[in-house]
């Protein structure tokens, strides 16, 4: 019985190049935005853009778009843990007298 | 020793007995059933076991009951915590408690300093707790209060003692070698007596606040005050008796053996050596003692160190 990886055709080069172009563009965007003074937004926008970049890397470069669902489930567990830790630590930081 | 002698302490005690009571009851049921089953269903008495995979209504009932019980306990504990943390009376007597290795000092609103905590009976007292070096914890078991002393910030806790007497005061957060000797007393006295004490003359143990501007020249009298207020007293005696560190009595000018970088050498105790012992105490350690003295860099000013040197010189 031969065990074969399922559904792992090589991903096209062009997809990676497009993703890379998007990443560089986002980097340019975040640098450009950081020059403008937009108050609260300039605190949040770099992280929204960074998360978009991280999403692209994880989904395409790290093949999560093409992998089985269990990988997404695991990533969900890790992210949920982080969220809970942040929430609880900030229940101290934000309310300390 | 068991009963609380503060108003909130009494409330906390009654909750302790309710919660402990529930726990004892639960424990008894569990252990009774475990033993009852294990005597009733031995292999001899019951050779043919019955497989019971579960019983949803029973399990859900247990689940529901458990949630109800723990929520009740949570609620009981919550109330007084709120009072202690969030509802400090405005008219409370504010006492500043400072922890340092390994001594407590208390400062009253009129500037009076003391190493024991004196408080009036039946009047709320607010402790503003801070630390000069590492974590300590202000703990008076009889009042059921405890609060960590955190360097860099002031933490508050309050109590109303309702019975005159002298009670133990501990440091409850581990703070180094002499942690277990960081003891003091909380003395609860009548209001008249307390006021008399508060207005009275400074006690021998108490020291005035360290001077704002450091004087360049040393002053043996100031040194004596620093000796008790900075906690040197915890480790170094002035009567020749051996404590954690060497006694200061007649030490100036004598020759001692010290360990420097693992090698022994002889050194004369002079101004320079005392200064380095304050700033980098573990560089040259007197043979027979442990390298445990906390460095005073940034804690003692130059002038204060000079005063201490003068004081040590004066101890013949």
């Amino acid at each position, binding site marked *: 019985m031969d065990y074969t990886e399922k559904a792992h055709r*090589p991903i096209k080069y062009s997809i990676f190049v497009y993703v890379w172009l998007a990443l560089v563009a986002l980097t340019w965007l975040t640098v450009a935005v950081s020059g403008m003074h937009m108050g609260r937004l300039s605190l949040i926008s*770099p992280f929204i853009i960074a998360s978009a970049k991280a999403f692209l890397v994880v989904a395409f470069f790290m093949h999560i778009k093409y992998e089985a669902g269990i990988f997404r489930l695991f990533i969900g567990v890790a992210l949920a843990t982080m969220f809970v830790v942040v929430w609880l630590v900030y229940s101290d930081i934000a309310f300390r007298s | 020793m068991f009963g609380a002698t503060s108003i909130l302490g009494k409330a906390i005690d009654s909750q302790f007995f309710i919660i402990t009571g529930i726990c004892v009851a639960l424990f008894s049921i569990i252990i009774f059933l475990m033993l009852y089953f294990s005597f009733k269903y031995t292999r001899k008495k019951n050779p043919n076991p019955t497989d019971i995979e579960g019983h949803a209504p029973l399990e859900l009932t247990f689940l529901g009951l458990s949630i109800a019980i723990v929520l009740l306990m949570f609620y009981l504990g919550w109330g007084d915590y709120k009072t202690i943390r969030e509802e400090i009376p405005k008219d409370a007597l504010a006492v500043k408690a400072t922890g340092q290795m390994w001594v407590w000092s208390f400062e009253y609103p009129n500037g009076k300093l003391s190493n024991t905590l004196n408080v009036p009976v039946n009047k709320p007292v607010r402790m503003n707790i801070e630390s000069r070096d590492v974590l300590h914890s202000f703990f008076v078991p009889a009042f059921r209060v405890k609060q960590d002393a955190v360097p860099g910030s002031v933490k508050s806790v309050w109590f109303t003692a309702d019975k005159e007497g002298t009670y133990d005061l501990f440091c409850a957060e581990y703070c180094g070698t002499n942690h277990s000797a960081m003891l003091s007393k909380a003395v609860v006295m009548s209001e008249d007596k307390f006021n008399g004490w508060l207005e009275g003359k400074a006690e021998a143990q108490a020291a005035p606040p360290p001077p704002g501007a450091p004087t360049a020249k040393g002053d043996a009298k100031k040194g004596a005050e620093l000796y008790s207020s900075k906690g040197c007293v915890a480790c170094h005696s002035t009567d020749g008796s051996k404590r954690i560190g060497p006694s200061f009595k007649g030490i100036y000018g004598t020759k001692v053996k010290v360990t420097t970088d693992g090698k022994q050498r002889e050194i004369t105790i002079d101004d320079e050596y005392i200064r380095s012992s304050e700033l980098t105490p573990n560089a040259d350690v007197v043979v027979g003692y442990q390298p445990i003295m906390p460095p005073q860099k940034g804690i003692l000013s130059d002038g204060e160190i000079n005063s201490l040197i003068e004081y040590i010189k004066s101890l013949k």
Partner: protein
Amino acid sequence: MNETAEIAANKHKDYTGAKIGMWLFLFTELFLFFGPFLLYSIFRYRYSTDFINAGSELSLFVGSINTVVLLTSSLSVALSISALQKGNKKLTLLLLGVTIVLGAVFLVNKYFEWDAKIVHGLYPGAEALLSRPKGEILFFGLYFFMTGLHALHVIAGMSVLAVITFFVMRDKVTQSDYVKIENGGLYWHLVDVIWIYLFPLFYLIR
């Protein structure tokens, strides 16, 4: 028989298993950086002016260049996997080589950046730094700790990729058995993802 049962029964190479293991390891790396991130956010919240002042002393230009360098290296390693899967060994080796060189470029930039700060006495424990406001002491403490830890990961990633290059040369990693290069790539991408977050943290606050 389901897939897992099949593996258990026959002890074939389990690629999905290897990748699960790699991802779990990546989570531990992620949480390693998550701790300092959390601390950063807290101190940023408490000393925001100090952080903004300190952040403006870092060179946005060098930071941006390094970001692009690392993104490009991520591209080349991703391409190298596809190249190997298509059976193009030469291209694979070339792309892996490019990745490692880009990693080295990143480190050289980082070295000059650190050096410039250290020359000005802006390093943890330095008198010049200690005389500054507390928020700036913390900013530079975190800057050196986090970028230092990240640089160590870049070095580790480069070593992993070097070993994989060697395996590809010796045909130990091939078109039909490529899970090692996939896992090495995953590690490299993680290093990239961490940098994607470090970049705004230190260079873009103003």
